[in-house]
Every structure is written in C-alpha cells, then in structure tokens.
C-alpha cells in the first residue's frame, strides 16, 4: 500500500464533549444599538458570515427614523461579546479619486449598500461589498460599484471597482452599465496584509 493511496482517507477531527444544551449568545438583534451607530437601532438582520479571524460580518437595516420611511442599510462587524460595531451604512463617505492616476481624494456620498453581503469569496482576509453609486459624480455617472476592504484597514485602502463602458451612438456618448455580481480575491505571493 502506498502513502499516496492512503493519504486521501486521512481525516483529523477533534472535539471535546459538548454541553447538553448549547448556550445562546446574541451577536446582534432587532432593537439593539451597535457601536458607532449613534442612537440608531437595528431593524432587521439578513444574516451573517464568518471570516478567518473569527469575526462575524452582519448585514441588515436600521429602523426607519423620521422623516425617512426607509431604514438605512448597514454592515456591522462583531468580534466578541457585545462588540457589534457599525462598519458602513448608507450615506457614508468614502475616498474616491478619478481615473488611473492617483489624484486628490474627494469624499463622496456613497451608496445604498446592498442588503446582503454579496461578493464575498474566500480567502476571507478581505471583505468585499457591493453597492450602488446613486449620486451623479464627476466622471462617474450613476453606476454600480464593488469594493474591497481589508479588516486591518491600514495597509490596503478601501478600493472601488467601478465599471462603465463609454458607448457612442449617433454621435452621442452614453454609458452602458453592467451588473456587477461578486468579487473573487486571490492572494498572491508578497501580499503584505494578513488579518490573522
């Protein structure tokens, strides 16, 4: 018998005895106020997902606050008991420069964040969020954006991936906008930033 034939069958599992009734710990629930959220209270939660460092990303909406009849979408992060913190919400400002040349950073009022954590794929050292740029901006008309953030947030700035295609029809310029669905992130040798 060769090692090659034997190896695929090796599966290592480690568990200790589990408590009879699993304790429930609330990560986030309707009516709670995450950190950095002011007085806003959570209205609905769509769900959450783990990252490799054991944090949980959550998405949902705040309760509507007058005069708006609609609650702001938001993404929160949780890293331990009572630690849920607002990460992004509709109307936040994020850095933006135009074109391939790094220019002045212009704060833009972005997006209605998609209510779900679209675009997330392993590796989980990075987070990807999908949003829609709803404001007409210099060089970026209404469009979709898919942006990537690193949990450490220092070595890698927030990155937007915006796409629009200039189309010339009868002498007029228009933009045809694709639908962006998700991001795939591939770590390559020499990546500086690790989250864990």
């Amino acid at each position: 018998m060769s090692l090659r034939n034997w190896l695929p069958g090796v599966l290592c599992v480690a568990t200790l005895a589990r408590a009879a009734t699993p304790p429930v710990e609330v990560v986030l629930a309707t009516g709670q106020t995450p950190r950095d959220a002011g007085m806003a209270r959570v209205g609905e939660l769509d769900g959450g997902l783990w990252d490799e460092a054991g944090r949980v990303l959550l998405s949902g909406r705040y309760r509507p606050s007058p005069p708006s009849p609609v609650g702001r979408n938001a993404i929160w992060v949780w890293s331990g008991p009572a630690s849920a913190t607002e990460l992004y919400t509709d109307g936040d400002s994020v850095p933006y420069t135009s074109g391939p040349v790094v220019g002045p950073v212009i704060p833009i009022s972005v997006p209605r964040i998609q209510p779900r954590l679209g675009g997330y794929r392993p590796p989980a050292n990075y987070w990807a969020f999908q949003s829609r740029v709803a404001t007409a901006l210099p060089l970026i008309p209404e469009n979709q954006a898919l942006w990537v953030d690193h949990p450490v947030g220092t070595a890698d700035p927030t990155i937007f991936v915006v796409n629009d295609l200039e189309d010339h029809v009868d002498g007029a310029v228009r933009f045809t906008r694709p639908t962006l669905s998700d991001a795939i992130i591939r770590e390559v040798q020499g990546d500086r930033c690790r989250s864990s």
Partner: protein
Amino acid sequence: MQIFVNGVYPTTAGGRGGAVVWRARMPFAPVISERHGVVQLVAAASGMGLGSLPGGRWPFLRLMGVLPDKNLLWEAGGTDGTSVLRGEPGAWSALLEPGMAAPPARGAVPSPATPVARIGPVALAAGGAGVIAEATYAAAAGDLSGRSALLMHDGTTLRLMAFAREIVDGTAPGTRVDGVSLGAVDAPTTSLAAVYQTITGGTRPFSTQALLLASDTGTWLLARQSDPLPEPAGVTRVVQFRFPVLAARPDGTVVFAAEVELAGGRRREVLYEVTPGLPNAYRVLLSAGDTFPVATSDGLRTATITRFNSASWRPGIFDRLLVAVDLAGDAQSAVILLGGGAETAVRLEPILDGLEGVLRLRWPATVPSILESSPSLMLPDWRPVPIEPVLAGDSREVRIPIDTPGPRFFRLR
C-alpha cells in the same frame, strides 16, 4: 492580492453583451473603471476578441473561486450543461466537462467507459478547496446510463461521492431510485459533504427531498421528507426542509432545519443536529418558541424564535454555530451563536512522515484527551488508539504506523 469581478453587460452594450469578468490592474487606485483603463476585461462569454473558451462561445461564464494551488476556477455554462475550468483567462483546462471520464464506483479512478453526459449545478466546497457537481452518466456508460451522481474535484482528484443507485439502501426496501438532484450542499472537507437532494424514481413514481451525508466511504440517509423523527417527542413527519440551513462538521454531524408536524397537526420549525449511525442520533438544538434575552438600551427583553434562516460553523474550528433567526413580532430578527462556554474545540495537527511510514498527530499538551480512531464515519466504531502520547514541547504527539489499508478517522475525546 488580485481582485476579479463577475458581471453582465446588457445585450446592447457595444457588442459586449453577456457575462464578463474584469481584473483590477495593479497598483490599485481608489477608484478603478474600465472607461479609465484601470480595470481590464479578461474574459467574456461571448468572446469579445479574448481568449476563446474550450468548445467555443458559451452562454454563461463566471469566476467561481480560487483553488488551494492559487489556480482560478471558472464555471462556463453551455447547452450541454456546465463545465468547470481551471487556469488563467485564455489558458483554461477543463476540470469537469460533459463527456469526461468518471469513476464507475466509489473509490474507483475515472474510466473512459463510464463518461458523464451532463454536469451541473456546481458548488464550491468550503474554503474554496474544491468543487462539487451533480452529473449524469452518459448513454455510453452502460448500466450506469442516465444515473445521476455527485462528483467532487479538489483540483487533483475526481471522487464519486454519491450516486442514485446507492441511495436505494437508505430508502424503503424495494424502492428504485432513478435520479438525484443537488439542492444545497455544505462540505467541510473535500471528502465529506452534506447534501439536500430531491430523489426521484420508483416503479410507482415518487419525488421526495432527502438530506444525505456523502463521503469517500459511503452515502448515508440522514433525514427524509414525510418520515418521522424521534426528537422532539410527537413528531409525526418532516413537512419540508429549510434548504438554506445546512452546516456540516468534519466528524460527520450535520445541522439542518426542518418544519415538522406534531401529533394533532401542529407544525413547528426545529433546528436539528444529526449524527450518522444505526440509528441516526438526532438532537434538537433550538425550536420555534424558544426564547432568549436581548439586551437593549431599554433593558432586557425576551426574544422568541419563529424560524431559522441560515447556519454556519466557525470555519476550520467548528466550535461555534452562527444562526440567523426570525423572531416573533413584525420584522424582528437576530443573529445568534450556539456553542462556546463549556464546549472547546481542539485541532489535531497531522504530519505525514513518508520516510518512516508514520502519521504524527499533535495537539496541545494542556488538553488531556484520549485519541480515538474509526475506519468509517458512516458506521462509526471509535476505539482508543493504543499508543501512549509523548510530550513534545508544549504538545502531545502520537506516532501512528501506516500499516492498514483503507481510510482512518481520528478524534480527541
């Protein structure tokens, strides 16, 4: 890092209609767009002058993920179903494709005598470590012709995880199963997957939902629609599974949610944990009507569960279960964690010493655990490994000779 983005152009977009994939060029600028030249279009279902896909143009294309060897994994849809491709844009090689050789039996190597005619749908295994696909054997596969199967490819090996004929053993005696279709899947390893499937067939045609555990060593029926369950008391049948709720651990236990009917006709949502065996062991983790306290700025309030929406184990450790629930009241919901506290998971560290023909297993010395071994997860027979662990620094280590054929599974208790 590299960022790829999947997207779709409207069909009128300057001849670029259809699915496309872009790559962000390095170095990244805070805003990147194709119009400004920083995003590069790297693949398109319709061609667009880019590297052609094998077999010509495809109606659908998307980048699925990244394999452990950093190769890209693509899904390309055609009229014959789906193909899964590996590699850089324009230099693809097929991982799964219609007409490919497939294993004729569990543990067998792929054979040209048993090709598959159709692939799809496909799903990624946990952590992107492989791809799981539903497949149907081609007419040329003789006795297997038309049978559906579940295949897993980890980038190196193509495994048969389950196929319709095997499921006969887990259904009613004499039942003929013709087909299985992939509903939802959670695979904690590349050799183990929990799968919701629809099973069809029979001399008296039927179609039912089933939850199966598929592995290198066998397929096991964990629960089936319309069957009773022993827990909680009084459950007469499973009405339906909550398909998105599915979380499997490497030890073969599976968490799932189902709407069950109780004696008297009342229905209830239940979150189960099932351990495969003869018989399967079911445990109710939570059920509709359970309550827990929620701390708000107004003080503590009591939340009452009405429904389960998703469940996922903490990746790699499998010690805590993240569960999204609906609560009683309009638009109320929560995300909660189960586990922790009294439960602690310890990871075994395997080291294969090929020169000496031994497997070394290590775990933290602070954990005075008993190492057990079983030849199967489907019919577990856990017995203590009769080798005394030795202290190696801050670890305990056992050296296990590789002297028996077949798979072996290990756990700490």
